[in-house]
């Protein structure tokens, strides 16, 4: 999906206005071009750094287990909460496992689960949101009220209840996060959809006699792809934090699998002994989420801030 977002941006860049606006100095007085020059996506230097950080984390998510010096479950160090040294780059954790290796392993779990959950949230949210926008009437009313009910519950609370009832496993984690965040995706998709449904070109398609599917796939979806892609980044951040919070509470990823959120919880007691074991995974979460946010900021700024309004 990240790639999709990129290709969308590239597509925008590649259609450059041709410089035919330059007059031909004849007496023809051709119609002058009024379309504004296309704005290219410009990343600020902060944005560029953020892109690099995200890229590094994505590589680690794929390659982490292969490049990590130790296995995530290996209790290899002599003692718990050892400070950083040549063998254990970031010290050891409360069971004497290598913190650095666990962060590399954890990247896959944390980013993977969040990414799949966000995809699930998007699939459900967009399907229902666009359906509500296109159909309107009772479909819209019922879906929206149910959605309001879900949104009114605190996410963590709802997550706790579902997981407490069904037990914690990775598929259940993904489904829970997907369901909860589908509610906010639904909101955005419906708002965007409604916005486009009243556009003249949609009315024009309806006047032509087009069916619902044509209108959804050819008229509405292409026009909300860009804002939704931008929102995907933000939503991913929320899901990372959500999964981490659940893990922190002990309901997320179960040991001995490593996960950044649970790593923070497990090693909290180490803070008292001056250990950094809880700080490193917290930093990992922070760098990833902040970077994604910064890139999204740049994208929405280049879209003229129009997206920002729709994203709340």
């Amino acid at each position, binding site marked *: 999906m990240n790639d999709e977002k990129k290709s969308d941006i590239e597509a925008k860049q590649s259609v450059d206005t041709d410089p035919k606006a330059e007059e031909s100095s004849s007496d023809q*007085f051709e119609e002058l071009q009024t379309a504004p020059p296309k704005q290219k996506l410009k990343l600020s230097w902060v944005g560029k750094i953020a892109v690099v950080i995200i890229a590094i984390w994505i590589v680690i998510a794929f390659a982490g287990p292969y490049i990590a010096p130790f296995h995530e479950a290996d209790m290899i160090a002599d003692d718990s909460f050892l400070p950083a040294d040549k063998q254990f780059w970031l010290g050891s954790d409360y069971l004497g496992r290598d913190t650095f290796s666990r962060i590399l392993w954890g990247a896959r779990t944390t980013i993977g689960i969040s990414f799949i959950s966000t995809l699930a949230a998007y699939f459900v949210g967009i399907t229902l949101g666009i359906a509500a926008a296109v159909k309107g009437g009772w479909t819209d009313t019922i879906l929206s009220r149910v959605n309001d009910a879900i949104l009114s519950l605190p996410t963590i609370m709802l997550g706790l209840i579902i997981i407490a009832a069904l037990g914690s496993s990775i598929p259940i984690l993904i489904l829970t996060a997907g369901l909860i965040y589908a509610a906010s995706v639904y909101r955005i998709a419906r708002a965007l959809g409604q916005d486009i449904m009243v556009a003249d070109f949609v009315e024009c398609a309806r*006047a032509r006699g087009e069916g619902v599917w044509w209108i959804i796939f050819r008229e509405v979806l292409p026009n909300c792809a860009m804002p939704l892609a931008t929102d995907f980044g933000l939503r991913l951040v929320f899901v990372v934090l959500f999964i981490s919070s659940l893990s922190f509470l002990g309901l997320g990823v179960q040991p001995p699998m490593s996960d950044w959120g649970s790593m923070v919880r497990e090693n909290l007691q180490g803070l008292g002994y001056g250990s950094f074991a809880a700080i490193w995974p917290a930093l990992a979460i922070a760098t990833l989420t902040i970077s994604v946010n910064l890139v999204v900021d740049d994208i929405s700024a280049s879209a003229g801030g129009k997206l920002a309004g729709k994203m709340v």
Partner: protein
Amino acid sequence: MTEMLLEVKDLKIQAPKENAPPIPIVKGVSFNVKRGQVVALIGESGSGKTTIALSSLAYCKPGLEFSGGEVRLDGQDLLQMSDVQHRDIRGRRVAYLAQSAAATFNPAITIGEQVTESSVLHGILTQEGANKRAERLYRALELPDPDRMGRRYPHQVSGGQLQRLMAAMALCGKPDLMILDEPTTALDVTTQIEVLKAFKKVIREEQSAAIYVTHDLAIVAQIADHIVVLYSGRVQEQGSAEQIITRPAHNYTHRLMEAVRPPPTSVTHEEYTDKDDREKPAIVMDDVTAGYGKIVGDEPQFTILRNIDVQVDKAQVVGVIGESGCGKSTLARVAAGLLGAAKGKVVMEGKTLQPSMLKRSKDDLRKVQFVYQMADTALNPKQLIGDIIGRPLEFYLGLTGKQKRERVAELLDMVELPQEFANRYQMELSGGQKQRVNLARHLAAKPDILLCDEVTSALDSIVGDNVIKLLTRLRKKTGVSIVFITHDLSTVASFSDRIVVLYAGRVVEQGTTDQVLNPPYHPYTRLLITSVPELRIGWLEDTMQTREAAVGIARGVELTAVGCPFFNRCPLGIEDGTCEKETPAYRQPAQGHVIACHQELENVIESEEKPQMILKGYDKVGRESQLY
């Protein structure tokens, strides 16, 4: 203090590009504005006129930069100043008046507060002083109820009044220079005169200088002292208004003048198709009442159209005119089925159509095509032009692959666009090109009737002129009937066979172009005719003195359940109250000519000789009406 207020010398503005040389937008423009003078910048969109006007605020649109030249306000070069100094000048010494007043006003704050805000903020006036000045300006701008105007909210006044309030806002801080950016383009003809008149008066009273940006030469003739003609960022010609209007030297100025239509006159058209074919009506609207909201009995909650009887013959062009809000667009929407009629029926080729498009058959939908006003919003920005035009071909006619591509190329050819455009997106085209694509898409369906909803009103005069010519040729080529909706009478008169005049949802007059305009009988038709700006200095003053303008302009439409809807603006109202109490019945003075007026037709013309009806400058009308 020098006599020159603003001196623009060799101004250059460019659009920088990252990996390419910058694109010049303004290529060395020089002109001067003297105190108390109105200078008009005229040219079509893309000519750089707004960009140049904004430079007197030392402001550049995002994506542009100043690359040379000087803009001197009272001898000081604005381009060399710091941002702090700019802030001091903007709004205080130079005020900007944007095109759309409705978008400029904050709907949640009272008008008075917004009008006085900038002058209080700049410390020019105290709140109390500003309020007083604002009230004086309301009076000068002839706004209704000036004492209490300040306490109203923007939605409580009309569009033309808002535009004048914008002027009050700009003038409140006593600026030396006012920039008016197409302030009347979005307005109806009748409202436009009212606003123009107010601007002219206030500029004269305040002795302020102004830069007037527009594409309409006829308007410029009324208000400017000095005219600068621009094309593609260069001055083509400049001189006094009188010289440019009467003795234009440059080709481009001639071209602009051609695009200004002569006053509405009926012209005879060639017959385009077989006689017997023509006599069959293409579409008939029979006693149609339509509106929005819940329908109770035969009446919708908000009735927009009442008892409309309109017939469009094959290969005929029918012009529908009236001010905004009179129901012109609704009429077309009912015909297209976008809005179901509450009462009455729409008949096509002897077959009554379903009121709603959802129930119409594919073929019925194909035959009636509704062309949207704004091509910007009517073309999907994410679809290629080729796909947009190709879809109706595929959908209605089942063309695919090569056949479809060939037909798309043919259609692009028909609307005079290069075939490569099929691979472009809507955003890469200019306004006129988009409108052509829009037309091509609807022509692709091979319709019997093309409903054109103000298709030229968002375009520049030259571009609009080209679109009209295109429509005329298309009718000849394809034999399609065209319903052309507009508020511009002269556009309609120049190429329609029949004219339907709508007022407050009723047809007040209809007939052949000749019957309606030669001479104009209905007082409303007459008002519309008087309101069309002419390319003549002094036209505005003359018009304001005609009796139609004196009574009809500056009054709003009042919707009445009984009586003639035009009563409150009519100069010929019958004294005994007939007009107020009875809805005028339709009369047929000639075959095909329908008129709704209580006044005897002879009286409309004759009454011009009656001395008690005479207003100053009144025989002007008499003379002009004979011209038609």
